[in-house]
């Protein structure tokens, strides 16, 4: 990738890490002392590591199980259609949906009460914000499984999956064994970076932890955010020390994961030598895979439906399963602020996405015209903003931006969103861009067309679909950003996500519902447009619609 883009991606991270490290170690280590003196530290560290590792392990295991049981079958297409839209759901909205579903006063309790449970009032159970972080883990699994699954789907054709599975089947292997022994090693090599990103995210998420996670103490990243938000600034050095610790923990966890990878690989090779066909486990495995897919799709779908219902609910008392009346009162009352927040959100998302598209296209075009081959190192750098925990470098970046007067503006938030939007836009666009038929360019060049003309008249128009999809991905990523908006926006730039998370600690379910619905709706609209627009544009061009 050209230096400008690389700098753009790595510079804010490096500056942020430096800006975090300085106050953490400065002032004679006062921040570190205060951090170590905090009684909640051991538990919050354990929570971060525990929820991160367990949720990643579960999400990866279920992803692989679903692939092993169903890849290439008709059922797989259905599972994929069910899970793919969930990718565009912002983390905060998914967490809120889950919270509305499983809380003691949530939809599940209401459906079962009072007939099955006898509850007339919400029970005094700590289901949400449970001290072990179970609901947080569940939320993370539900949100990360679709991501890993779609990343794996992109990798499968590259490793000749169908023929390998057929070969193994003719040798008498069951589906699960065939997948594990012939595909898993190659597939995992391509899933490694996404998995690390999931792990780093799971350990350090703030918005999901604030909504679903434990409170006394919260996870380390959530506590750092609370310290950063304190008005008197005296906890800044403690927060910085915590951020450094969080980074160390993430590095340790990824290293531990790497060691587990090596042992798993050795074990697989040893087992493969004994050639177990394991055909008997296929049916139970398929059952578990189907159940997991159904559970995750169902949980998120019902959770999000619950959010929408609350936004239009009138009086809705426990234990009624349905509100007494449906009304647009919440939308009407909150209309002006919903509109304003949506506008800010859209402006930031559009700006960051357009900039990311321009940079990604420029990089890819430079790569094509200079005949560069993408290296592994470039890919790691591309993943860097997804691997380095946000909580580790955003506090530093905020403290750097503060004296420069750069924080708290829409432009600054847009710029920091770009750092996270660019990798996703690039990953989404690079496949189709590189797969473009090079003979088109050769044919056009022999017709006398310049490189610029080939790009603008042929390559770009032919890639309309992928470009729009990448744009929708970028919009969804930007709309979902919580911590960058909060930290760089300095609390003065409000987006749907920061508002929804801020409201989540209060009790106004109707308003939370309204914000969360908009949070869902904007990415959904972007994806619908990305699907519909090419169909309309190419209504008279069969090949462009993928027809023969």
């Amino acid at each position: 990738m050209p230096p400008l883009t690389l700098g753009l991606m790595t510079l804010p991270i490096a500056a942020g890490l430096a800006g975090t490290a300085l106050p953490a170690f400065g002032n004679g280590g006062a921040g570190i002392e205060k951090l170590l003196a905090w009684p909640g530290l051991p538990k919050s560290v354990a929570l971060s590591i525990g929820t991160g590792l367990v949720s990643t392990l579960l999400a990866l295991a279920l992803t692989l199980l679903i692939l092993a049981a169903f890849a290439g079958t008709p059922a797989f297409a259905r599972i994929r259609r069910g899970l793919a839209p969930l990718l565009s759901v912002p983390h905060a909205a998914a967490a809120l949906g889950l919270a509305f579903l499983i809380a003691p006063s949530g939809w599940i309790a209401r459906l079962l009460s009072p007939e099955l449970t006898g509850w007339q009032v919400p029970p005094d159970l700590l289901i949400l914000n449970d001290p072990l972080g179970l609901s947080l883990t569940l939320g993370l699994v539900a949100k990360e499984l679709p991501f890993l699954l779609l990343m794996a789907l992109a990798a499968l054709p590259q490793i000749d999956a169908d023929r390998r599975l057929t070969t193994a089947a003719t040798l008498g292997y069951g589906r699960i064994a065939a997948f594990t022994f012939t595909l898993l090693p190659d597939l995992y090599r391509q899933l490694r970076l996404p998995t690390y990103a999931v792990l780093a995210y799971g350990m350090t998420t703030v918005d999901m932890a604030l909504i679903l996670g434990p409170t006394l103490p919260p996870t380390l990243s959530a506590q750092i955010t609370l310290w950063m938000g304190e008005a008197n600034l005296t906890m800044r050095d403690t927060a910085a020390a915590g951020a450094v610790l969080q980074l160390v923990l993430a590095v340790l966890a990824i290293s531990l994961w790497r060691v587990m990878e090596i042992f798993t690989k050795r074990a697989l090779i040893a087992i493969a030598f004994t050639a177990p066909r394991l055909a008997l486990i296929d049916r139970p495995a398929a059952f578990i895979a189907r159940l997991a897919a159904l559970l995750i799709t169902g949980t998120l779908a019902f959770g999000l439906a619950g959010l929408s219902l609350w936004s239009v609910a009138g009086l809705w008392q426990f234990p009624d399963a349905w509100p007494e009346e449906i009304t647009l009162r919440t939308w009407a009352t909150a209309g002006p602020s919903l509109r304003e927040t949506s506008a800010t959100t859209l402006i930031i998302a559009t700006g960051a996405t357009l900039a990311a598209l321009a940079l990604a296209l420029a990089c890819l075009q430079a790569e094509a015209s200079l005949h560069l081959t993408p290296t592994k190192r470039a890919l790691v750098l591309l993943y860097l903003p997804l691997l380095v925990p946000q909580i580790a470098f955003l506090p530093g970046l905020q403290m750097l931006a503060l004296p420069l007067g750069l924080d708290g503006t829409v432009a600054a938030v847009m710029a920091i969103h770009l750092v996270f939007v660019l990798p996703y836009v690039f990953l989404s666009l690079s496949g189709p861009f590189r797969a473009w038929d090079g003979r088109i360019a050769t044919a056009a060049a022999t017709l006398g067309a310049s490189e610029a003309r080939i790009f603008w008249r042929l390559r770009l128009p032919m890639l309309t679909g992928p470009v729009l999809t990448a744009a929708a991905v970028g919009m969804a990523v930007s709309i979902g950003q919580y911590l960058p908006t909060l930290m760089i926006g300095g609390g003065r730039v409000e987006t749907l996500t920061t508002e929804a998370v801020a409201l989540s600690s209060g009790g106004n379910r109707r308003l939370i519902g309204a914000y969360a619905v908009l949070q869902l709706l904007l990415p959904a609209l972007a994806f619908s447009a990305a699907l519909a627009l090419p169909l309309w544009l190419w209504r008279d061009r069969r090949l462009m619609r993928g027809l023969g």
Partner: protein
Amino acid sequence: MTLDQGLILDGLTITLGDRRLVALSLAIRGGEVATIMGASGSGKSTALAAITGTLPPEFRRTGRILLNSKDISDRPTRLRGVGLMFQDPVLFPHLSVGGNLAFALPAHVTGRSARRLRIDAALASAGLEGLADRDPATLSGGQKARVALLRTLLAEPKALLLDEPFSRLDADLRAQIRRFTFDRAKAAGISTLLVTHDVEDARAAGGPVLSPLGETLPL
């Protein structure tokens, strides 16, 4: 017409590592069709890539490529004046038939109506009247092949390279498109170099037939 007009390969050799793929010295006058024949993987297409200027960097070229007495060996593809036909028509799928032809039409044909007239005339000359607004994907195989050739010729190339352009066509269509292509190239008076593994194609071309390493092949 003097001898140095047309396409001249002056000791053109291409090597990949230690392997020599192409060694050709050949002069093709305007209106003449020369043929390079050989099995697949024998370096035929590599020779064409050198002439169009799309040779991948791992190949090494020596010798010169002259077109109408100008050395074009190191010019960028778009400035060489060399047209190319692939095995497939490679029509631009997002443009109409007319849009495909307009893309090739040189900028010196100015004015919308003048350009439209040239395109309609070209289509009519190939028995494709009224197809300008059609989606190229809806054309028959023979129609696509003819549109592809019209597109190549509208760019007014000084030499034409044919990379097995008939091999994907049905037998009955094949002879017809072949005749159409050679007639058009001869009528335009441009040097044509055909690459094929088919003896019938080489016979129909009517010019010299060489292997990629320069041996004259008997038919």
